């Protein structure tokens, strides 16, 4: 167990350095000087130089990268935005809860949809329900989230007026006119649904296939031969085994989505990590982009670790050595 953790941490560090370094290198390949942006349109060459010195972009990129690492590791500080001099820590700190709300809420949403539909259609293959759910899967997988988002916003938000079309309300600290759990959920219902459609479709298909496979396993027949009633067979013998791969996928999908649910955030103007990253890219704002990358990488690493541990706990055949 300790060895396993040690191996995971070392790999995580290697991965972390690789990802952040690649991001830095890519940035320096873009022929755009952030100093010019900072110095403004009317700036002289000297102004730009001063701005570059102030930002540190006049140094070779490896020096900048080393400083970035030093700040991050020693001071847990992601630096300051080139664009508006805000602390990147606080930029990411503000954006992360928005994305987290979207992703975790969305995950709950899609699992609430996918679990019953997937299980029921596996129990009654070729039934009306099964065919309907397969149609849903096809639509969910084919339709682009931006399109779904726009359609939802138009119908539920604009035409019916059931939900707000854009915006985000903080769960705990109301900053503006709206705030608190009710407003928070109210503003997020449409983004959740939009975000969940694609994943719900994928998960219905996966859960259905897993349950169908597991129902044909020999140990399910054994359970029936013991005289176990169907609900017990389903709960204790089919679902537990059928959910093993679902847990893995769920962990990977959530951690990926935390890196930025770009499309959904764009449609609903949610100030999350995806929007922040796009803003950073548009403004050549390396610290902000690196900040999002660092956060996303950490999220993926931590989540995968959690999933592995969870998997080892529910599947005794996996031994973490």
């Amino acid at each position, binding site marked *: 167990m300790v060895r396993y953790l040690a191996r995971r941490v070392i790999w995580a560090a290697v991965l972390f350095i690789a990802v952040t370094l690649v991001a830095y290198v890519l940035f320096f390949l873009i022929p755009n000087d952030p100093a010019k942006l900072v110095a403004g349109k009317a700036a002289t060459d000297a102004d730009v130089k001063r701005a570059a010195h102030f930002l540190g972009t006049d140094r070779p990129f490896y020096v900048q990268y080393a400083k970035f690492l030093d700040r991050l590791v020693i001071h847990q500080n992601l630096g300051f935005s080139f664009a508006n001099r805000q602390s990147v820590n606080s930029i990411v700190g503000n954006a992360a809860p928005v994305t987290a709300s979207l992703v975790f809420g969305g995950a709950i949403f899609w699992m609430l949809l996918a679990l019953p539909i997937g299980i029921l259609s596996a129990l009654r293959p070729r039934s009306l329900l099964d065919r309907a759910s397969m149609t849903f899967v096809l639509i969910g997988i084919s339709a682009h989230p931006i399109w779904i988002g726009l359609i939802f916003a138009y119908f539920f938000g604009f035409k019916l007026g059931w939900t707000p079309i854009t915006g985000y309300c903080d769960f705990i600290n109301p900053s503006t006119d709206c705030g608190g759990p009710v407003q928070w959920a109210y503003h997020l219902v449409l983004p959740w649904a939009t975000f969940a459609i694609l994943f719900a479709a994928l998960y219905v298909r996966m859960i259905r296939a897993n349950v169908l496979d597991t129902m044909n396993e020999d140990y399910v027949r054994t359970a029936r*031969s013991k005289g176990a009633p169907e609900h017990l067979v389903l709960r204790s013998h089919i679902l537990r085994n059928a959910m093993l791969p679902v847990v893995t996928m769920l962990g990977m999908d959530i951690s990926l989505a935390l890196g930025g649910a770009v499309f959904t955030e764009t449609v609903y103007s949610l100030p999350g990590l995806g929007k922040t990253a796009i803003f950073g890219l548009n403004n050549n704002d390396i610290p902000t982009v690196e900040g999002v990358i660092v956060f996303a990488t950490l999220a993926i690493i931590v989540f995968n670790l959690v999933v592995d541990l969870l998997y080892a706990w529910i599947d005794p055949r996996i031994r973490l050595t």
Partner: protein
Amino acid sequence: MALLEVRDLKTHFRTDDGIVKAVDGVSFSIEKGQTLGIVGESGSGKSVTCLTIMGLNPKRNTISSGEAIFKGENLLAMSSSRLRDIRGNDIAMIFQDPMTSLNPVHRIGAQLVEAIQLHRDVTKRQARARALELLNAVGIPRAERRIDDYPHQFSGGMRQRVMIAMALVNDPDLLIADEPTTALDVTTQAQILTLMTDLQKDFGSAIIIITHDLGVIAEVADDVVVMYAAKVAEHAPVDNLFKRPHHPYTWGLLGSLPRLDADVERLVQIRGQPPSLLNPPRGCRFHPRCPYVMGICKTVEPELLPAGDEADHVQACHLDVATKDREAAKVLAGTMAEAS
């Protein structure tokens, strides 16, 4: 009265290609404490017969008819809750592949306890004590420590012992064993067969053993049913079947077997392949492969009747007894004419 009497059992599966008649009119009976062997090749319907008795076929596409009278009740006609009471309690089953027949995510102790608590109103502690008793009885070394292990921590032979323990835990009257040793090595097979016959003496259960291996049949069975293409070809006491086999298919099976105790240059080979059960041959189902085929075989289906003077030795073949005895003697001498 027989413990289990199966009459004209039919199991048909609806498939996209049509109706597969997997079992098509099978009858046999088994007495208390007796061992009945069902032998046949893959697709002969031997496993489906037992799954039908247990009510374990998928409901969606299965049509069953006939009767299976167990202690006066028809298993095929009873409610599913009554059948669940009987399954695992009065009739238990063990399966071919011990590697896949135990649930990989539950400890073996929990799986045995589940089997007990489904039928007995006992505490977990009592159930566990009973589980441990059975694990010891089937020869699991250090059972008190291994009871909390998971299936993957056991070898194939040990897992089959666990399966046997789980089947016997409620002291069933009938144990159905579907190819219980096919997936095992020969020395492990010997251990398991010995164990099953020993336990039968202690528990007094009747056993139906399904296998493709005539050697296993000869070793454990009292009575043998030979199945071919969803029907019974021959049914006889074990000594009779091996000494005086009456059906050409049985001869083919015996002759195609290489054996330790006899030398033959060439094995008898039954020509062709088993027929499709979607569209089985008319008349005798074996006639397209039978070297003794006559005109009548192609049109009239033979009935299951005694061929000679022994009432308990029945077979379904049109050949006359004199021919049967002559040809059977040749098979046993290893000189059966090659059927090709």
